[in-house]
C-alpha cells in the first residue's frame, strides 16, 4: 500500500486514442464524486447522523433505499455524506505532502551537497517506518480525528513526492537555460519558481492524482481502526468497521456498500494518475 510499490492498477491497455478517452471517463467520474460530496445535503433523503431505534437493520425499502444500519440510520444518506470525508482527507494529504515534498525536492536538487544528503537521510528515515504505523503513532500524539489522520498520512507521503521531484528537478537544474538565467542575474528563488517548477509540474500532477487514491485507502484504514473519523460522522472506512458487527447478524450491507464505494473511488483516482503519467511519455521513471 505504500507509495513505493511500483505495481499500479492499470485497468486499460495502453493505446494512443484510448488513453484520452479513458482519462475523460475517469475524470468525469471524479467530477461526479466531487459533486456528490458538495451537494450531499441535497441528494441525501435523510439526516445521516440521526437514527431511529425502531427501524434497526432494515432491508431496502421505499423509505430507506439501501436499508438501515445497527443504529437505525439511513444507509444511502450515510453513503452519500461519507463521500465528504472520503474526499476531504486525501485533499489535505495531497496539499500538505505535495507542497512540503516539492519544496524539499527542489531544495535538494538546487543546493546539492549537505542539504541534499540531509534531506535524503530524512526521507530514508521516514521510509523506514511502515506508513500505516507512522500514521498511527502520529494520531496517538495528536489525538484521533480526520485532520490528525490526514496530517499523519501526509508525512508518510512526503518522501515519495520529494524523491520524484528531486530526480526531475535535478535534470532541469543542469539544463543550459538555468545557467543562462543565473548568468543574467536572476536569483535562485525566481529561477526555481518561474522556470524549474513549471517544468517539473506535469510529473507532480500525475503523482498527486495517484497519491490521492492511495491516501484514500490509508485514511479509510485509520478510520476502520477507529482512530480516524469519529462517530457519528459518516465515513466509508468507519462504516466498514461498524458494519462488521452486523455481518454476523446476517446484515453485511453496511460494510459491503461502503467498501464498494471506496474501491470505486480509489480505482478511479489511481487509474487516472496512472494514465496521466503514462501519457506523459513512459511514466515517472
Amino acid at each position, binding site marked *: *500500500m*505504500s507509495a*513505493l*510499490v*511500483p*505495481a*499500479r*492498477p*492499470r*485497468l486499460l*491497455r495502453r493505446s494512443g486514442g484510448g488513453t484520452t478517452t479513458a482519462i475523460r471517463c475517469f475524470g468525469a467520474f471524479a467530477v461526479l464524486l466531487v459533486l456528490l460530496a458538495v451537494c450531499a445535503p441535497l441528494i441525501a433523503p435523510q439526516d445521516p447522523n440521526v437514527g431511529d431505534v425502531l427501524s434497526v437493520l432494515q432491508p431496502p425499502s421505499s423509505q430507506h433505499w439501501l436499508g438501515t444500519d445497527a443504529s437505525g440510520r439511513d444507509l444511502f444518506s450515510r453513503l452519500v455524506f461519507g463521500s465528504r470525508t472520503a474526499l476531504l482527507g486525501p485533499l489535505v494529504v495531497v496539499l500538505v505532502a505535495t507542497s512540503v515534498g516539492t519544496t524539499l525536492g527542489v531544495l535538494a536538487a538546487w543546493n546539492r551537497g549537505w542539504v541534499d544528503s540531509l534531506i535524503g537521510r530524512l526521507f*530514508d*528515515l521516514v521510509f*523506514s*517506518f*511502515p*506508513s*500505516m*504505523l507512522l500514521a*498511527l*503513532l*502520529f*494520531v*496517538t*500524539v495528536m*489525538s484521533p480525528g480526520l485532520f490528525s489522520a490526514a496530517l499523519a498520512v501526509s508525512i508518510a507521503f512526503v518522501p515519495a513526492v520529494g524523491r520524484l521531484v528531486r530526480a526531475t528537478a535535478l535534470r532541469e537544474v543542469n539544463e543550459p537555460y538555468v545557467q543562462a538565467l543565473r548568468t543574467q542575474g536572476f536569483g535562485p528563488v525566481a529561477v526555481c519558481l518561474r522556470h524549474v517548477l513549471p517544468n517539473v509540474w506535469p510529473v507532480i500532477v500525475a503523482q498527486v492524482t495517484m497519491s490521492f*487514491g492511495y491516501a484514500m*485507502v490509508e485514511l*479509510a*484504514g485509520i478510520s*476502520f*481502526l*477507529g*482512530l480516524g473519523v469519529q462517530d457519528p460522522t459518516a465515513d466509508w*472506512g468507519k462504516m*466498514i*468497521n461498524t*458494519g*462488521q458487527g452486523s*455481518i*454476523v447478524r*446476517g446484515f*453485511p450491507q453496511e*460494510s*459491503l456498500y461502503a*467498501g464498494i464505494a*471506496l*474501491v470505486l473511488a*480509489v*480505482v478511479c483516482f*489511481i487509474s487516472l494518475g496512472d494514465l496521466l503519467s503514462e501519457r506523459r511519455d513512459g511514466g515517472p521513471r
Partner: protein
Amino acid sequence: MAIVEHNLPRSAGRPWSGVLLTVAGRLAQMALTLLTASFLIFVALQLAPGNPVDIMLGAKAGDPEAVRRLNAQYHFDQPLLVQYGHWLTGLLHGDLGTSFVFRESVSSLIAARVPTSALLVAYGGVLVLVLGFAVGLVASRAGRTVDTGISVLLSVALATPTYVIAIVLITVFSLYLDWFPVFGSGDGLLGRLHHLTLPAVTLALSSSAAMARVTRAAVKDEEGRDHVTTAVARGLDRRTVLGRHVVRNALLPITTIAGIIGAGLIAGTVIVENAFGLDGVGSLLVQAITRKDYAVVQSTSVLIIAAFLLVNAFVDVLYGIIDPRTRTGGTR
C-alpha cells in the same frame, strides 16, 4: 574486507565474503535506523496527551504522595534522555517496562502475541509466493484472452484495500458458506491454521497480485533474450529452458518486489488482525493506542519496525546469493 577474508577458513569461501560484508553493513545500518526511530517514537510519545501517572492512579489521581512514588518508580521525574536510556538498557535485558492498562510486563504481553502474528505473516508469505508466482507464470504462458482476463482481475485485487477484502471474505466464507470461523485464533496448530486461513488470504491477496504482475513481466522479458533463443536452438526441451534459463534469471526482479511485499505483509497485520479479531502484535498496538498505554505502544512499534527492516535487509542479502554480480567487494 581483508579482515573478513583472513577469518575465513577456506579460500573457496571467498565469494561469500562479499555476502558477509553486506550482512554486517546492513545490520549496522539497521541498528542505527532502529535507534533513531525508537528515540523519535520515545520523544513523540512524551508529547502525547494524557499523563500515565494519572491513568495508573485512576480515582486516586492528584494524590501528591502517590504521584511522587510512581514518578520515582518509573523514572518519570528524570530528564528525557535518562528515561530513554532506562528504556534502552531495559530492552537489552529483555525488560520493556510494565503496561499500565493490562497490569502485566510489556515483554510477556508481547511474547504472548508474537506467535499469532508470525504465523499470520508466514502463512501469508507462503500464499503470496505460491499464488503470485503461479498466476504470474500462467499469465506469461497463456494466450491473449486469458492474459487480459488475469490482468483485469489483478488490477481489481491490487486496488482493493485489505479491510474491504476482509469483509467480503467474511461475508462469503463465514456468513453464507460457513467454511471458516469469523473471529479468534484457534487451538493447536491445525486449529490455528484453520482460523488463520481467511486472515492470511486477506493479507496476501493484493500482494499476490503485485507478485503475479512482476513475475509475468519478468518471465516475458527474459523469454525474449538471446540466450533463451540460443538454448531453444540447441534443441533443449521447453521445460529445461523455462526452468534453467528463463525462471532463474527472472528471479532477480521477483526478489526485489518480494522485499517490498514482505515489508507490506508485516505492516498489513495491523489492519488484518483487527478485522478478524486476532490476538497478535498489530491488534495489541491498536488497543494500546486507544487506551493510551504508551509503554506498550513504544515497544510494539519498535518491534514492528525491526521486523520491517529485517525483511528488507534479508532480501538485500538474498539478492547477493541469487546474483553474484550484485555482491559488494570480493568480486574483483
